[in-house]
Structures are given as C-alpha cells and as structure tokens.
C-alpha cells in the first residue's frame, strides 16, 4: 500500500483534508521527524498532508501576546528579534535543534506535535507559560496550555482532525531572565541527554526570588515543569544553600530512565548541577542589567 501525498495551499484546505482523512493523515511540515519515523516503520500514514506552503502560519507576531506561527522554522525562531529581548531561552533552544539542514525546515509545530521527551523547544516554552492554538473544521479554534497539550511520550491532545496553528507566550515581568541548557556529548546535533529551562524573577533587592519556573527535558516521558522545585525556590533568598537544596529536590523530582544516550543516575546527577548553573546565570544577568541602569526595563 503506497502512501499518498497531498499539499494544502491554504489553512482552509488543510482543515478540509484533516476533516476528511482524520487519523489516516500525517501532517507533514519539515518532515525531519515524520519522514524518519515512516522510514523506520515507527509510524504509518495513508496520506501525507503537506502544509509547508501555508505562509500565514510562518510568522512571529506581536499583538496582545507574542504569537509564534506553527510553521516558524527553528532557524527563524533562533533569530527572531521579537523573542531575543525577553525570551532568549527559546531562541537558544531553537539554535540547538540539529544542524543547519534541520533548522531550515524543522518547525515549532512539528517539534511540539512530535512530543519527543527530549524536544528542545518544550522546556523554554513551558517556563514562558506557552499555550497552543488548535483549529478544526468541526470545532473551530481552541487553546490549551502546552503542559496540558503534551500527554506522554509521542502523545498529545491534538485530535486527528486538528491542526496546531500557533504558540502563544505570556508577557514577561521586569527583573526577569531566562536560560536554556542542553546536556549532550558533542557540541551540536545532539538529542538532549538532559535539558533545562529556567525563568527567574528577582525582587528589587536582587536576591529574593519572586517568581521562578523550572522545566526539564529528556529526563522523563514528557518535558515538564518541576513544580516542587519551583515551590521550594519561590520566595526564597537566592544563595548557595537554596540552590543546593533545589538541585537535590530536582534530582528527586525527575523521572529519568536508562537508555542508549545516558543512564538515569547520570541524568539525576547532572540535572541538579545544571540548575545551579542556570540560577547563577540568570541572577547574574538580572543584576547586571540593574547595574547598567536599566532599572525596571526588560
């Protein structure tokens, strides 16, 4: 049985195809995940629904919120001027997804819908409170928190007739910095052994943590926020002791497995250390901005 291929010229056309094909269709954007899974027989599809031509989904917009179209490529995301000031962690993650070839065609939507436990974009999107927009012919548009959208390894709440159209970001408070760190053996092209995103907001005293979000990737079946670690840090005075306590908490909170890339014990050991470094980095940047006289500037 040979796989069919159809190419949508507009969002409406794409939704029509999805309405009629449902789970028989596999949505094809850049294809870097899907084509590989088809080749390895990890996925079957009666029809490839090609959506790369939907230009309307390929932009980063700032209206009420920052909106990233589902077809924004990793390359575009890495360089997006709208994101660099306050959402640099997202840019950093996008720049680390594979090499130039992958970045040119791989998309945000593809990364999220593929829902790999090691998906690089998920942790930084989570710490920025991302929400996803989904559309279908039958039910119109709905929004969902990213954390709710991701169910399990390779499983999301996208219905077979739905298309993920955009990702929406929260505004960012003053005195906030974010960071993304990826652990791998080589300097590029790695599927993360462990990854971590942090968004830190400090009080005007430059030490009290008023808000913090921590998200990890590749250390559980799905990338997710570490709520217990966040609770431990919130309201605390940033320093060595609390950083170590948070690191120990995070090591316990994650659910890593042994796999070909790394052992569970390494993941537990490394994630805490990465958190300590991330806290240092973010705090230093917040303080430096303050010293440069940016005050409440973002």
């Amino acid at each position: 049985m040979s796989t069919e291929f159809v190419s949508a010229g507009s969002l409406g056309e794409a939704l029509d195809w999805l309405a009629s094909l449902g789970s028989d269709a596999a949505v094809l954007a850049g294809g870097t995940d899907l084509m590989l899974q088809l080749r390895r027989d990890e996925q079957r599809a009666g029809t490839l629904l090609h959506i790369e031509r939907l230009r309307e989904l390929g932009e980063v917009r700032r209206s009420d919120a920052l909106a990233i179209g589902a077809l924004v490529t990793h390359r575009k995301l890495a360089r997006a001027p709208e994101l660099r000031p306050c959402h640099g962690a997202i840019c950093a993650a996008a720049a680390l997804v594979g090499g130039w070839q992958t970045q040119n065609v791989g998309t945000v939507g593809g990364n999220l819908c593929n829902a790999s436990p090691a998906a690089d974009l998920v942790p930084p999107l989570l710490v920025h409170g991302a929400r996803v927009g989904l559309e279908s012919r039958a039910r119109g548009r709905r929004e969902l928190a990213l954390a709710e959208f991701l169910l399990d390894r390779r499983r999301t709440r996208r219905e077979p007739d739905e298309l993920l159209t955009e990702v929406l970001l929260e505004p960012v408070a003053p005195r906030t910095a974010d960071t993304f760190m990826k652990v791998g053996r080589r300097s590029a092209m790695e599927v993360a052994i462990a990854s971590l995103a942090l968004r830190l907001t400090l009080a005007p005293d430059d030490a009290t943590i008023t808000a913090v979000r921590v998200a990890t990737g590749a250390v559980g079946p799905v990338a997710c926020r570490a709520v217990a670690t966040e609770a431990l840090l919130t309201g605390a005075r940033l320093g060595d002791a609390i950083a170590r306590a948070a690191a120990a908490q995070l090591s316990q909170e994650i659910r890593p497995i042994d796999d070909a890339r790394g052992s569970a014990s390494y993941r537990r050991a490394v994630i805490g250390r990465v958190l300590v470094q991330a806290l240092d980095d973010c705090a230093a940047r917040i303080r430096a901005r303050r010293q440069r006289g940016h005050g409440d500037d973002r």
Partner: protein
Amino acid sequence: MRACRAVTSIGSSVERTDSAAKVRGETVYAIDRIEAGMLHGQLLRSPVPAGSIIRLETARARAVPGVRAVITAADVPDVLAGWFLRDTPLFARKVVRYAGEPVAAVAADTLEAARAAVQALELVLEEHEAIHSIEDALRTGAALVHPEWRTYQFLPGGEWPRAGNVATRSVCEVGDVASAFRRAHRVVEDTFSSNRQFQAFLEARSAIGICRGGRYVVHTGHQYPFNVRDRIAQFLDLPQSWVRVCGHALGGGFGGKLDYGLEPYAAVLSRFAGGRPVRLAHSFAEDLAAAGPRDNSIITIRSALDASGAIIGREFRADLDNGAYTGEMLAMPGIAANIAGAVYRVGAARVESNLVYTNTPPTGAFRGVSGVAMYTALERHMDHIARELGVDRREYRLRHLLAPGDALLSGQVLPDAGILREAFDAVERIAPWAGLSNRRQPWRGVGIGACVWVTNPGPASVTLKLNEDGTVAVLSGAIEIGSGSFAAGVTQLVAEELGLRPTDVVLPEPDTDVAAYDSGSQGSRTVRMIGGAARAEARQLRAQILERAAHLLQAGPDDLELGGGAVRRRDAAAGQVPLALVAAADLFQAGPIAATARYAEPPPAFDPTRSSGALMPAFPGVSYHVHLAEVEVDPVTGTVRVLRYVVAQEVGRAINPANIRGQIQGGVAQGIGLTLHESLRMERGHCVERSMATYRLPLSVDVPDVEVVLLEHPDPQAPHGIRGVAEAPIVLVPAVIGNAVADAIGQPVHATPITPEEILRLIMAGEADPVAAG
C-alpha cells in the same frame, strides 16, 4: 598548506588527480553503480547470539512474487574460509554464533520483494547460553564458541598456539621478569579497558555479483580486491582464477573494507538467479551492527621500578575480543611484544596477548588496530608511574626513552630511535610543557605520549605502460581509498621518474584478472610499497623510452633526459620528442612500451625465538610519533572539549605535505571520536547503538585544528626514504586525551571511551559535598 599545480612532485603539495571528479559529483562509487537487469539481494541474519538451527524453511520465501533465488548453507560447499585461520562459514549451517550472522540470502526483482522474502523465511532456533564477554570466555569451564576448533586449518601452516576460546596466544619473554619484580623498589599496576569502534565510512558496504559460465565477477568498493577474490574462492571451493574482482572508488574504508563483506553473497546469489547481476547494499545501521569494528580489549600492565624510578621489569597482558569468527585479528596478539617495549626502556619483560572468541559480531581492522588500545594502556600507565614517583610526566618519559641502537623486545634494533627525542623537542617548541602543565587553570589539563609505528610490508607488484598519447597507466591491484596514496603519492613518484605532470599518470581501477597480486591499501603501505614497485619499473620504462628515443634524436640513451612529457638531449641541442611520438614510433615494429616490477623489503633483523604466536614479529618501516593534547572538562556535566592538539611525526620523506597533514588531521579526529564521542557497546550479544544518531561521530565543531610538525629522516631502506604515514595518527589520541583529562580532574581514567558519566562520577567522588548526589 595549500595544494598546488607544480610540475615537479616530490615534496610539493600537488593537487590530487581524483579531486576534480569528486567535487563535480561525477565519481562513481561502488554504491552508485547499477547493472542492467540487476536484482536486489537481502540477507537473513540470526536474531540470537548463540543457538542451534532447528529448522529453516524457504518455501514461503520462494513463493513471494519477484523472488529469483533463495539460498542457504545447503546450497554452498561445506567449507570454512578465513584470512589466516579457516573458521568462518558463508552461512550458519547448524549453529549460529553471533546475533547478525548470515543464515540465508534472497534475490528479487525489487528491494521490497527481497525484504518480504526474508520476512517469509522460517527460521527456528534453539537458543544456547552465549559467551558475552572476554571474561566469560576465559573462565574455567566456559562453554566453547567453537567446539571443533582443533579441526580448523591454519593457513600459513604448521602449529599455532591456540586452544578452546583462545584463537591465538602470543607470548614474549625477555630476561628474568620474576627476579625483577622481587628486587623492585616499587610496583605500579593498572588495568585498562577499551571499547569497540565502528569505522563509520559514509559509503556503506555494497557489492554486485555476476556469475556467467561458472566464473564469478564481483564489483565492489574495497581496499583489498585480491583478498575478496581469495575469500570467495575459499567459500565456493574454487581456484582463485574463477573469481574476478573489480575494485571501484570507495567512500572510506579505514580497515573496515579490508576483509570480505557482501561480495560472496552477491556472487552466489547471481549463480542461483540464472546469472543475473545481484546487488546487495547495507544501510549505515546495518554496517554498524554487522561485523568488523575495532576490537574491545582488557589490558593489564605491571611495572617493577628500581630506586631511581627506572622500569626494570614489565608484565603486559592484553586480551582482545575476536568476536565469533577470526579475520585479520589473528595477527593482533603478536604486535603486543614489540609495542610493550617500543618507546621506553623496560628491562626484563613478559608479554602475553590472547585473541578471545565470544558470541558477538566478529571484530576486524580499523586504523591502528589493537595497537591503539595497547599504547593507550602504556601511556596512561606511564603517567601513573610519574605521579607515584612525584616526577614531572614529560620529564619522566625523557629520562627513559629508548636511545639509538636500543632494541625492541623482539630484538629488532632501532638505530634511529633518537628521533623520539627530536619529536618531543619539536612538540616542546610549539607547545611548551611548563606553561601548559603549570598554568593550573581550573578544569584544564594536558597530556603527552609517544609511539613507534610500523609500515605494513606486504609485497607489491605494478605494471606501467606508456600510452600512445604519452600518458602512463599504472596497473595495480591496490586502489585509491581516499588517502591520496595513489592519486597523489604513487602518481607523484611515477611522474617524477618519467618527467611527467601528475595529470599524465592514469590510474585504472584494479582488476584481479589484469593486475598481479597486491596486498591492498592497508597499514600505510601503499606509497612505500606500491611506490617502490612503481619507481622500479618506471626506471625500466624510462630505459625503454630512452632507447627508442635515441633513434629519433640521433643520440645515445645516456645523452638523453626526460622532462615536461618529452625526451630531449642533455647537451641542450635543439629538438625534443614528445612521449606520444616515442610511443608511436616503431609501435608496429618494436611493440608497445611497458614494464612490470615487484617490490618487497627484507624484514628487519630480529630474534624469532623470543616470541610465539606472532604473525608479524618485526616492525618494518618504523616511524616515530609524539602527541600532545590540552583539554577542558566541564565540571557541571563532565563533558570534555579538546582545546589543542599537537603532533610531531617522522615521515621519512614528505611526498605531499598537504596530503600528510590531511591524514594526520583525519586520524586525530577519528581518535577524538574513539575517546570522547563514539560508543559501540554490546549488551547480551546485541549492539546498544543502532544508528548514527546514537553512534556519535565527531563534527566540525568538535575537532580542533591539529598543529603538525613533520620530521624527515629518510629511511635508507625505502624509495625516497618514505615511511608509512597515514595509519599512525590515531594511535596516541586516547592515550594523550586520557592523560589530559586525568590531569584536569586530578584522577586517573582507565576506560576508553571516556564518558561524561564516568568523569562526573569521578568529579563528584572528589567533591566534599557534591551538588545533587541524587
């Protein structure tokens, strides 16, 4: 170092003659080839590492539409083949000995049909307890991987030290080791383990076989076409001349395309498919799992030191994993003896090395072979000794280097061992040790090491013929494998001898029907050995050319010289004759101009009574090397970055410096992969790493620019004084990076690869209050 278009070759970085076709994308590699009407082949491979074949039913497979042939052990002679030891069947007959062992093969009109047919084969196995590791294999009472080992034929003939799961044992004893250890002031001991490494040539293995009139023709991208011919002849129990192997451009080999691969299967399938051409090709993942990687090993070293810190006694034991069948690996244990005493004086020594059967994919040759693991052990052990004695690591080495006239443990004298000191000095000038080792930047470290390496001495034979247009063709059984040994090295030697431009030297692809036997592109032998033969007969050719030209120029042959693609008088009188004219003149009276020559070197003198079980007991074509590495360890994650890498290498005579630099840079990159990134682990007989995503190759952002110094002390034995160049650059990499990492974290490392997991574990063990002891 930039390549140039100079006419004179030796010592210039002349452009390789194969580069233009490659940059155009016009080079046809073996995997690019098709034959009209060709069928597609697939193999059925054993899913378990050890077991008996209860049943193998082929009826359903034969019934798949488009299937033209299905073959099993029943369809081929009941013989065993092998490079030195005939222990390998073409298909598993009654038992399987490794996961991945071929059990059957099919050929069909399409790849899909072939795959469907393999799925339709019914294989019923009764699994046995398998031998998974060297330790398992050597345990008393261990099951035998080859219960019939005694019946296997050893090709060089005579007795050979082997028993049970030990396919070869090589032992060397010099002096009174027991006494040395009794007298010792101090004993230092280490055990090192080293893992497998896949050659990872980007062009996967493939072959096309065509059987016509009982003769088999095979097309393949291979380093050693004559070896393929001989192996097919063995498997099919035929005289070698019934098999013709045509070699084609290959996209990387590194030793992994030295033994047979898919060729015998393609050949036999063609016979059973009515003579239609059959193509088999692996994917990268299939090559990764199939066979032939660098062996894994366990090496133990003990050194007895006297009060001054000199090594007065050494025990060295290397156990090497053969996998389930023996290929080139039989030659490996024998190199331990020379390596164990190759760089530093060791006094009395006992060296033992065992090649051990396990139920895993057979191991094979990969640049540097088992010598890499052996030098890794030796040089990390030297750092250990220096640290125990409280002596600077470089200083300790210099104190105990072999001196000119000292001998290897085999008794082979190294008259030029003083080059070792020169190499250390050369590295010192570029990268002063004191600055690197005392700087004490946190988490940075430096390592140094030295080795003596060898040039494979396989004899060569080459034919040169003068084409009627004045170009010269080099007919040989060896091939350009990518290193430039042919497209630059040999080409330059011939061009130099005959006064030609390198682009006027034509290199036809090897054909075992046409060329005389050649030992293939391996062990850095090509430029020296083939070049030696080529130069010898270039001289014969030259004599013929000058004799014929003498008539045309009204002069005696001694009054003439070659240059610029022509013959002219030395006395600079007017007139010259292009080679094309020389070739054409008298063509129908005197015939064409051609010459054939052999080249072999007598082995260096050594004492054959010192070692047993050594196929290569001497080190011909010796070269000397010193490497230095500076690394930075990330204390958060345990990952390692190589900041700086320096190589001083003795090359005899640099025929093409830019090419040599490329070999050094490439060898170091492969070594960085072996040491830090790549991993080919076996778990209960199966590979853990299954694709390029998990078998991580070093990338452009992972490899520093290697700083290179070439030393040139011509080897008096060799044409132009050449020493083999291309294999050695990988040998010291795990040693010096290991030493640098140990320096950076303050703790020794005993394994290769050096993983972030292990480094982080060591770092945390050293921390008073580790972050997230989790």
